[in-house]
């Protein structure tokens, strides 16, 4: 019962604004504000995912994570496809982890 109720409520959250948009047009100011929701949410989700990243057992992980994110952002800034951005970021992570590990022993 609880799962059905949460599912019904969640579906309403997902669909009602989409279906209502054809009939009710938000004020331009509201529409403009909604345009700023994606960067706020995406950056918050990215930070949350980084904080959830499991660093146990891997030395110098913080530096490697920072390098991975920097490489990813640099590639994204050049408007490369997401797959390339992720592959570059992960490659940056492993390179940095290896490099720092070799330098610091």
């Amino acid at each position: 019962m609880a799962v059905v109720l949460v599912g019904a409520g969640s579906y309403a959250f997902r669909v009602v604004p989409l279906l209502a948009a054809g009939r009710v047009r938000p004020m331009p100011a509201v529409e403009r504000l909604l345009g700023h929701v994606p960067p706020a949410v995406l950056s918050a989700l990215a930070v949350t995912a980084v904080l959830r990243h499991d660093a146990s057992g891997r030395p110098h992980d913080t530096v490697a994570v920072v390098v991975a994110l920097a490489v990813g952002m640099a590639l994204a800034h050049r408007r490369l496809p997401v797959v390339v951005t992720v592959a570059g970021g992960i490659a940056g992570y492993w390179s940095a982890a290896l490099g720092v590990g070799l330098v610091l022993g």
Partner: protein
Amino acid sequence: MLFTTDTPQAPDTTDTRCGVRREVFAGALAMAPFVVGYAPFALIVGSILGESTHTGPGLAATWLLYGGSVHLAVLRLFEEGAGLAAIVLTGLLVNLRLLLYSATLAPLWRDQRPGFLAVAGALLVEPSWSLAQARHERPGSARDRRVHYLAAALTLWVCWSGLVLVGMLAGARLSNVPSVDLAVPICLLAVVTPSLRQRPGAAAAASGAAVAVVARGLPAGTSVLLAVGAGLVAAHLADRGTS
């Protein structure tokens, strides 16, 4: 006023089929890194579900709730013996952010059919939402965007469901894949980076990130809602400062 039409006046069926195939491939490919990134999360949800004493409702939640955070929250409350009201309120709080996602897509999909919106809404989660935003930035018809979204969202839906089932059957040991979880934040940064070129977008992103760090101890989903509030205030102030 100009309206986008779904089909050209003299449609070439070969071009149409190629266009659909191209969008299906592009949508599925764009979702692939998210699938890789979310795989450990899906396996963890599945392994917890496998150990749960509420396997039936927990499994149904995979499709009825369709979201890792809300699924885990509901499973945890089931195990703690929480009441109906507590489970429903918590679940709805965690998923309240979906209202914002839907509201931000509504202006972009104003010319889409109600049937599509009903299906698209059911598949709406962070990755599909972010890819819909990214696809809107590129040229294409309403049909192109519809096909791209459905291909991407269904790819995630199928893979997520499969991985939860695998996790349920195989246990937690499958989720120990090093550094793969970093694919998710890199994917998200790839989508958010273009908006950093403008001051309000950069202000919203910086505020959202800062609030997410400060509010990380709060229940799942709450930090995102607070990040949205902070981001909107920061973007509004930056917007006023710019103009």
